[in-house]
């Protein structure tokens, strides 16, 4: 295939047949319970050096309890997909978890990422949010790459892993981006059963794509529901069980963010992240919110408390569309 131009980024090896073999050998098509604790899920399924994708951001249905657990377990050398994020990339870098990042967007108020790049502990490759979700879509379709009509001609493209190829049917130039099949995906959902069937209500970034594209998939869920519920309304199932490796029951798992229909965000606690970033004060932040507590439950109990929690739940007045 004639490659007219190509970007310079290192990229996660594209290997659709290898991914298929992983799926065959490591995922289960039997209905077996995958319910585990956040500690066990992260211990067993997140390895140092993994390519790590998480869906959504800290303000909006991000898998925050699991991200905190990943930091708590001091995972190292992760390669992160930085699409549609705010402060999470900085937090993970500050915590020493990350060595590479494919960046679409983050809110860089502070200097932690710049400093890590300058010190040589972090490499950053350039993408846009939708380029990253399209890479995941190719990965979720079992394809090695995705043709697309975006990004060509930019410096973002130049420092990505994209290629410009000539389309075999029109002869016109076309951007092709390598499929992304992360080692591990972490996704927060509204409802799941113990087997991993999962429902997400509302819009999304790439929760379905991330689940299907990834070798190891951890779902954290606000509610565990009966499989019967899925059978009563199969059109509401977002992610099929056979893509999922672990289910963690994590009520308020998106805190400090919103989980639409369940609870509102805690603006103060989100701004606390922003302040930690701006002031390069991540150590104190992590000590308080991550290392200083043993678990999500302990954090909610000791640092949030029932009164605030009731307020967050109370503010989630919009239910339309967020119930099956």
């Amino acid at each position, binding site marked *: 295939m004639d490659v007219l131009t190509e970007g310079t980024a290192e990229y996660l090896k594209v290997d659709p047949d290898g991914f298929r073999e992983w799926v065959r050998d490591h995922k289960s098509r039997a209905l077996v319970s995958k319910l585990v604790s956040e500690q066990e899920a992260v211990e067993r399924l997140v390895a140092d050096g993994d390519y790590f994708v998480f869906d959504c951001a800290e303000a909006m249905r991000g898998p925050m309890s699991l991200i905190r657990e990943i930091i708590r377990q001091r995972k190292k050398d992760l390669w992160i997909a930085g699409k549609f994020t705010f402060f999470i990339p900085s937090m993970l870098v500050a915590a020493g978890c990350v060595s590479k990042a494919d960046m679409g967007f983050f809110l*860089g108020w502070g200097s932690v990422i710049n400093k890590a790049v300058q010190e040589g502990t972090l490499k950053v490759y350039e993408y846009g949010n939708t380029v990253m979700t399209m890479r995941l879509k190719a990965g979720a379709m079992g394809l090695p790459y995705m043709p697309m009509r975006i990004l*060509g001609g930019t410096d973002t493209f130049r420092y990505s892993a994209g290629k*410009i190829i000539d389309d075999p049917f029109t002869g016109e130039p076309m951007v092709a981006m390598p499929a992304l099949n992360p080692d591990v995906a972490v996704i927060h959902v509204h409802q799941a059963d113990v087997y991993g069937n999962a429902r997400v209500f509302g*819009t999304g970034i790439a929760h379905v794509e991330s689940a299907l594209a990834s070798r190891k998939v951890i779902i954290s869920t606000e509610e565990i529901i009966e499989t019967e519920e899925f059978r009563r309304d199969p059109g509401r199932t977002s992610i099929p069980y056979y893509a999922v490796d672990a289910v963690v029951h994590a009520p308020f798992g998106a805190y400090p963010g919103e989980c639409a229909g369940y609870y509102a*965000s805690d603006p103060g606690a989100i*701004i606390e992240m922003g302040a930690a970033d701006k002031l390069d004060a991540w150590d104190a932040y992590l000590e308080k919110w991550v290392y200083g507590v043993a678990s999500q439950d302990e954090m909610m109990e000791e640092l949030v408390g029932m009164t605030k929690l009731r307020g967050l739940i109370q503010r989630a007045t919009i239910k339309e*569309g*967020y119930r099956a």
Partner: protein
Amino acid sequence: MNEMKKAVGTPATTFSEREYEICVAARMIEDGKSYWVAIGGGPLYAVLLAQRLYAPSAMYVTEDGVIGPEPLLPLDPLVIGVASRPNYRALMWSTMNGLTEHAQLGHMDYGILNSLQVDPYGNINSTWVGAYPEEGRRMNGPGGADAIASACWRVLLMVDQQKRKFVPEVDFISSPGFLDGSPGAREKAGLPRNTGPWRVATPWAVFDHDEDSRHLRLIARAPFVTVDQILAEMDFRPLLADEIEVLEPATEEELLILRSELDVTGQNTGVGRWVAQAEDGSWSFAEDNG
């Protein structure tokens, strides 16, 4: 500039620069067209204001896949997508890829974007300030702007009127404008045919792109600044339209909607300097509020 609608309401005499930029952008919104709006900030307020005054059936989408919402305002701070208030009463909830595909298909008439830096060809930098990758500082990155600037038919850019933001060459092309400005440059890079930058709105001015050279051209100015003031806040000289229209000031009606309905927390009211008109009709800038 026939795309600009006549201002609705009584001319106001005091408003902030950012409020004015939103009013000017809102007057450019076309009724019955679709807008892919950068999540949060000026672009969103421009389209919401337009829906109330200028273009009741303009429809917008955001990159998390929400199609045609009627958001419940005000939004929570930083919670600007995948959330119940901004996505309220949508016609459809899709996903980022779903929406990108609709845009690739040509369903998105306009994109509206903020930009950190723009060059004469409408190329957008939101990634880096300085000499990439060795010197300088990383900024947010393109986010969804690369898809918006690639796949919508036309792009309306909202930029502050500052010399460091209008540069002869951006430090990094995050999202595509007309690239090097040569004919077919976008198409050769794989982007869809006949797409690209359309207008740049600042608190002081409106620009389009010359059809032949693709170069930025000043076509309108705010009533409170001169052309020379505008040029002084650009690091390159734009083309000048034969006749530079004078924009109408913000109106009381626009500001009422902005302040009492759309942006009750004052996120935009409080940004940029204030301008005020004296009784003799002359305009002056108040202290910088930014």
